[in-house]
């Protein structure tokens, strides 16, 4: 089958690159081997939380020059400060136009999101129903809070969450009341404790009748507080149930992400994918790229597990297969490889001992490994760029997304950059 553009991997980077080339009038197919890192994420997109030397970043635009000095191979450094910021700002509008309800902006500076482990992390764009802290003061915009969780829910408990919130300095323990909600409507789910997870709970609570019982149980508890905080167990298809609940009990409701699966991340993934289909894209989910042919220096076609002998051909290909976690990079006994095309990597020494540092809490060298490109973000073979193989997202090398807190930003910025290049070079 033939398309103008084929994108390999439908994570954040692949979806956004695909949506953008459709917008530019190209035909596009996505091939995706199982759901992406979005399903495991916080549902918030981080742009730049720390510099490599550990300095916290409060405003990314002010930190990009220092980043380029300290990490010249970072995709932001390759693209340059101005282009990175322009693409980041475009990503904000791009995602909102495609139906993601997000708070935050580069102009406003980093917000702080709360992780299920109780730490705070600087972030850029977060679901509008997610709890965020004022970056300047680290405080909550409310005085008295009710932190309520669901009885039997193990992926985020109310006491844990309350003490975490107090520990962040966002508020004081005295100002927090915690409660565990009985919610008999969930009793059928409770019979399987291992399946008592955020997504399953949300799929029950989102029903208007169940939501009404949640409101009825919360309302008396929430009478003298300024806001209610819940684990992200509400709003499977949209954030509408959170807004409805808030109206019903008369105080703002915010959610905190739980341990995976990520309700918000997965919802974002589905919204973007459905939009991709509605815009005319074709998505082959559950299929895996298994082979390819070169045409001189260019990529001619790819083969997949489902399509067997029928190749998928395109003028341009986008490699957005993610990092080790999603299979974009593979580590063998002696080498780290880019899984599909064996593209040149940044910093992948033969010596396995150099891949990790002794403490799991230190930045891990292997996190920098990934595909080497120049500013055009094209994959390279033996130092020569492949003219029509564009690389976006976490499969790229030169940065540690966990240590720097830049995974979502890199995925979005590089996705728009490669899509622009595809659209621009072939006007």
């Amino acid at each position: 089958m033939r398309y103008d553009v084929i994108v390999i991997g439908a994570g954040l980077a692949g979806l956004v690159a695909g949506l953008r080339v459709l917008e530019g009038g190209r035909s596009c197919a996505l091939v995706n081997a199982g759901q992406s890192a979005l399903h495991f994420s916080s549902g918030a997109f981080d742009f730049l939380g720390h510099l490599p030397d550990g300095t916290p970043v409060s405003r990314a635009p002010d930190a990009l020059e220092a980043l380029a000095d300290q990490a010249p191979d970072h995709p932001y450094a390759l693209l340059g400060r101005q282009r990175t910021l322009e693409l980041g700002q475009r990503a904000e509008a791009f995602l909102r136009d495609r139906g993601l309800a997000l708070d935050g902006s580069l102009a406003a500076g980093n917000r702080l999101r709360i992780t299920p482990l109780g730490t705070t992390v600087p972030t850029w764009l977060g679901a509008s129903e997610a709890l965020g802290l004022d970056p300047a003061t680290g405080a909550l915009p409310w005085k008295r809070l009710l932190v309520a969780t669901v009885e039997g829910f193990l992926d985020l408990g109310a006491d844990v969450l309350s003490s975490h919130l107090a520990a962040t300095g966002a508020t004081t323990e005295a100002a927090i009341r915690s409660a565990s909600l009985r919610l008999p409507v969930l009793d059928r789910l409770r019979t399987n404790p291992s399946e008592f997870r955020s997504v399953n709970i949300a799929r029950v609570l989102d029903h208007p009748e169940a939501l009404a019982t949640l409101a009825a149980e919360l309302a008396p508890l929430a009478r003298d507080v300024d806001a209610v905080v819940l684990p992200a167990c509400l709003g499977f298809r949209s954030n509408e149930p959170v807004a409805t609940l808030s109206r019903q009990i008369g105080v703002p409701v915010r959610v905190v992400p739980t341990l995976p699966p990520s309700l918000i991340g997965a919802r974002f993934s589905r919204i973007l994918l459905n939009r991709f289909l509605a815009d005319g894209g074709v998505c082959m989910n559950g299929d895996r790229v298994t082979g390819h042919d070169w045409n001189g220096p260019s990529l001619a076609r790819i083969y997949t597990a489902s399509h067997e002998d029928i190749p998928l051909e395109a003028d341009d290909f986008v490699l957005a297969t993610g990092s080790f976690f999603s299979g974009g990079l593979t580590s063998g006994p002696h080498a780290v490889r880019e899984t599909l095309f064996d593209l040149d990597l940044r910093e992948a020494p033969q010596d396995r001992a150099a891949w990790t540092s002794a403490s799991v809490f230190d930045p891990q060298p292997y996190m920098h490994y990934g595909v080497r490109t120049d500013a055009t973000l094209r994959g390279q073979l033996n130092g020569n760029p492949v003219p029509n193989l564009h690389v976006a997202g976490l499969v790229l090398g030169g940065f540690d997304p966990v240590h720097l807190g830049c995974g979502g930003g890199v995925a979005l910025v590089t996705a728009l950059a490669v899509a622009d290049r595809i659209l621009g070079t072939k006007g």
Partner: protein
Amino acid sequence: MSVLDDTGFEACTKCTICTEYCPVSEANPDFPGPKHAGPDGERLRLKDPAFYDSALRHCTNCKRCEVACPSGVKIGDIIQLARNTCDTSRRPVRDFILSHTDLVGGLSANRLAPVTNALAALPPVKKILESTLGIASKRRFPSYARQTFRAWYGKEAAAAQALFKDQVALFHGCYVNYNNPALGQDILTVLNALGVGVQLLEDEQCCGAPLIAARFLDKARANARINAASLHEAVAEKGLSVVVPASTCTLTLRNEYPDILDMDISRWRPRVELLTRHLHRLRTAGRTATLHPLNMKVVYHTACHMERLGWAGYSIDLIRQIPGLEVVVLPQQCCGIAGTYGFRKENYDTSQTIGASLFELIEASGADLVVCDCETCKWQIEMSTSKKCEHPATLFARSIRGG
């Protein structure tokens, strides 16, 4: 067990993504979902089959869990194998009737079909069927044809089809044969326009999908042996490709025969494929037909088994060739019917709950027609929305004929 080794259940990371994409566990809290019913349950069942949980009967074998799994676990296969090996409960007569599609079709698709169809549509008859057999009375039954496709083909088409230099064989499936021979004729129109004649297989039985779902594994095996012999003959002896219009029959022949029935089908598998995929091959080989514009809007629904095959692109690309036609692809979600599942009284509500948001989208789409490669989706969509639903080949044939 050799078959289970191929399901990859050891690769499960317990991430719960499969459950998130399972339409049944969303609509019916009694079903614990694919992670629990599949790899988790399998660990226990391997210790002792008595750990088998009867809630597994709720699984529709839609395989959306497999499509979503990041670790390549064949969760649907695990569940179907467990149901067929561990569940020893009695099978109701109703399940026999619903699953033996060729037996029932053979008795119904004849000159008396108009009478049978009218009877089956009468509310009192439906009530009786519900109270005696447990067939959902609210469901509209597919109607039977006066004459089977095979009978029509033998009388009206065989001789002319043999005149084409290039030939393919058609696995028409029960639906074309008993319910909608017109689709079979449309398939002939399309292939003939591309210069290809159509033969039928020596013998064709129901592919076995409803039998596997109703735990009639022996009967499924018996059918599969007959089909495998016919397919082998067509492919290996006559050198033909075999085209299959329905996505579920295609998936069953190509994937369930080896994965569930443990058959070696490597000799014919590569030459047996979905009709629209074969049409893609013909097009790539330079065969084109003159198409007339169809000035209308359609929405394409990707059936669950089409999603699993990964081949929706062939059908979408096919209808996008039709001039004047506006094609919008619906979100990837289940319509709720899942073959014979939604016909069972106890599943009716779950079935309609699963499909509800899809029906809303279809109603709101402003489309003139829904297009889908699966006949049971067609029944569900036509019963639950105000729109008609047709196979892509029907639409393509219409464009070839010019209206």
